[in-house]
């Protein structure tokens, strides 16, 4: 399984900061691995610790919180 292991990361991104930064990466065509699945939130303070647990329970290999 490890040979073809593609990490899956759930990313909680703040609409005003990191989500905008991620869009800018797109506009600038900066390439990065297709590993993250983004959930847009209005503030990184919204990330309840329980979301992290849910991310891992749901099958993700990692959780990225970025504000």
């Amino acid at each position, binding site marked *: *399984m490890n040979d073809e292991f*593609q990490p*899956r990361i*759930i990313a909680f991104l703040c*609409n005003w900061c990191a*989500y*905008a930064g*991620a*869009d*800018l*990466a*797109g*506009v*600038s*065509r*900066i*390439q*990065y*691995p*297709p590993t993250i*699945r*983004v*959930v*847009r*939130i*209005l*503030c990184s*303070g*919204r*990330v*309840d*610790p329980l*979301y992290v647990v*849910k*991310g891992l*329970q*749901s*099958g*993700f*290999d990692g959780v990225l919180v970025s504000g």
Partner: protein
Amino acid sequence: MEGIEGHAGRFTVTLREHPRFVDINKCIACGVCAEKCPRKVEDAFNEGLNKRKAAYVQYPQAVPLKYAIDADHCIYFEKGKCRACEKFCPAGAIDFNQNERIFTIEVGSVVLALGARHLDPSAIEEYGYSTFPNVITGMQMERILSATGPYQGRLVRPSDGQPPKKIAWIQCVGSRSTGATAHEYCSGVCCMYAIKEAVIAKEHAGRDLDAAIFFMDMRTHGKEFERYYRRAESELGVRFIRSRVHSVESSAPGSDSLKVRYADDTGAEAEEIFDLVVLSNGLETSNEVRELADRLGVAVDENGFVKTACLSPLETSRKGIFVCGSVANPADIPQAVMEASAASSAAARLLAKARGSQVREKEYPAEKPIDPAEIRVGVFVCHCGINISSVVDVTEVRDYAKTLPGVVYSTDNLFSCSQDTQQTIRDAVTEHRLNRVVVAACTPRTHEPLFQETIREAGLNPYLLEFANIRDQDAWVHQGCPEEATVKAKDLVRMAVSKVTFSEPVERLQITMHKSALVVGGGVAGMTAALGLAEQGFPVHLIERNGNLGGNARNIRATWKGEDVRSYVEELSKRVIAHPDINVLLNARIESVSGFVGNFLSRVRKGGRSEEISHGVAIISSGGGFYKPEEYLYGQHERVTCWHELEDLFEKEPERLQRAEAVVLIQCVGSRDEDRPYCSRLCCTASLQQAVTLKTRKPDLEVYVLYRDLRSYGLREELYRKARELGVIFFRYTPENKPAVSAYEGTRGKLNVTVQDHVLNIPISLDVDYVNLFSAILPQTDNDLPHLFKVPTNTDGFFLEAHAKLRPVDFSTEGVFVCGLAHYPKPIEESIAQAEAASSRAAGLLARGTIEVEPVVSVIDQERCVGCGFCEASCPFGAVKLVAVAGKGFRAENIPALCKGCGICAAGCPQKAIDIYHFRDNQILASVQAGGETTREAKASSRPSPAARVTFVSGYLMRRDCMYHVGHTWIERMKGGRLRIGVDDFAGKILGPVDRLNLPPRGEVLRQDRKGWSFLRASRRAPFLSPVTGKVFDINLDAVSHPENVLKDPYGDGWLLVVEPKGSEAELKHLLYGEAGFRWMEEENRKLLELLGPEYERLAASGGGAVEDVFGIRPEIGWETLVKTFLRTEV
């Protein structure tokens, strides 16, 4: 702007619009035109440090984000051929037929926000800007440090792309200088930007970077600037060198580094070598602006700045034309943004009658009721031309969407944002009775409002839309892996569908605006703000706690430009009192404030009575005072005065001035020290003003100014020059070496002042008649305003605005604004402008009958709430409060008008009683779960089955995930570090059916490689070595009563012991794992075959299974031999 005709209130303006050759309604900002354009041009936005194409967007965050063709460099315009952009544009947006357009518009007032340009330092030859590639301007440094700059934010120098180790900033390049290539005024912004660049450079390159700033006076007079300066010096180690730079030269022939030659503050010559030199070049008015001003009939001063007066800082010489920002006065961002609001207030006063006359309301169909039980999701997947579809398989995503639960319709569009597709979406909503919509396209940050509008027009609540970002965060960033990008797109669509399934209509929140304002404080700022609103037709209540209006301004005689302040204040007070829409309440104080934007209710006490005032907005202009010095004999000697006291004294007793021979003015008394680490901003200018006045009235009077840095910023530098010309003498002192004041005789006679001369480095003794102190400006703190209005102050006690640059007069509490000294020390012209700005911001709210607030706010389940108050304490916006509920104590309540929907309260609510509309927990969790669904399934199906966990080695079953001990035992790590132990298949097979297991009792300590337990067959004993050291935690009682299990299922039901290891981790290294274990087993098998003899070797060669019950079949080998050989124990 070509020209203007008419008069204030009715202008006709002629405009010329240059063609951009791109239809901005079609451009999707994909960048293909720039990619294909063959012409490279110097990138002006990056100050010429790199190239862009002739088809370009000025910078990545431009608004609107639309491309343009630079006709001056386009090959088609030069040679009539090319049009590559047109050929490749997927949206057909290139239009070479666009023409210049000249047209007119009708306006009532005009605001000039033309800005200033950076002075070109090429002409200042001694700095070598046009000679050395590593001499750059401040703005070039900005671009180098920017993530979107020419080097993507890497700090490198232009000549060789290497990171510099030493950087010098040279201040006042082209400012505060004489000569044809320079300006006499101070550009006001360069000191702060140089410090900022040095700090950021250090953040980029690390603390080892050497950053040195060569300066004359450090002018950090803005709010929080002095602290920043101190931090840069003491914490980050930026070197500040007080000096005059003589020249910049090459450090050595062939080297790219530079030698900076300068005179230090004692006048001594010195030099130092740097890798990069940044010239802090100043601001100046461009020729185009001068020409435009000329065309408009607006007067400019000798420096080219549009002329304004201190008492009407926004008005030009032509009525109806206003200014803001650096076109009138060098301004930093906070100042310029504040003035912009101010100018709009001034402009709006002329237009008050016409307000709203050209506004049309848009109408929407009634919202369809949503049946929560019936989920009908429509999915629209966008190709975005080829932007998405060149990477993501859009049709596959579309078809996949159809399979998702709740989805009843799915389609793909070439451009989802185009007019016709909007209609398609609306039609689909109706035809397929969609009650939820997912758009998979560019990014919600730019296009969510458009699609919300679309479904709203189709009768759906806008919050029933969900966006899947498959362009900016997928197709564009995974161009090399289309398959993975398609998988990601499908995941994102599934997440969006999952979230939208839980979406619900969110009601729009409208707040009725009470169309009146409360202004707290009746100084110049408060009166200006009140008039600004009243003249636009909004009633104002002006509260002043003293018995008269005017505040501090009543002590001021003149502005620095010489205008009479006293008569201005008198005139202003009269207008305020006479205005029918202003209710002036003198000797009044605020007792309580409740409510929120649009609906404040304040209780005001005046005399013995208190009255309630309803108001929609509030402006705090509570002013400030000054520090009463305890130093320099102030209060002990009648000739030591403070601020305007000396002027008052000379006015009352003019003979005192006639008799005086010398006066000393001391600055920074109580400012910029440990107690008040801020600059009081206006004292330098005020002392220069006094010095000039004294010298003018009595030229033979000796006037000394003792200062630390002379901060006559902007055009005020003129006063400094004038003072020097008049013979005012300046001594700079340091906080370590403050001047000393002593009295000669009693408390009425002459005074002696000693001060250390910084050039000669000797103490100078001055005999003087008067000492006037310029003490710190203090915030008004003997009031309860921060608490009443729930607005913050900074550590110095001045009110803290929502954002220094973006919202300089707003509080983060909606509907409350600040201006004047309450915000920060500032001269009268800045107070007036700021008051206009506050009234402009307030009028923006008052002009509306209702205001719509973002309905994405928190929602509290009062049944679950226990009234703990955590939410109230944690809300950064004061949007949650506890209310008493009969019989239940307290319950939290949300104030939607204040709530920003950040969700901090929800994330922390101990009872989980708080949720956020449109970002509800169940929506987010559903989205997360859906996002992981496919991987979770893949993991479950690829989970090693019990069968996959085992393998046969030489016919013996072995578990891949266990460790083995050479005594034929296996060890499995358990949770918490315990070890499960059993014997392997091989041991079972050689010993055959055993009838008793002699296991150690719980608690017994086993040692590695010592006997641990034994099996018995008939009366024959087979002792086993313990594979580890540890305490027996548990034994398998089932196995004890069913010893056959050991043979049947050695790795499952046949386990023997659980041990809590007591040995070292190194012990486990003696065990065999993986391949090493398999090789060992093969070896053991070979040994066994040798014992068994030739016929069994054949059996092995034929691939037959292992021998069951070796002892039973070949007892002649001997029990002892088997035990000794394989279990490595003695019977």
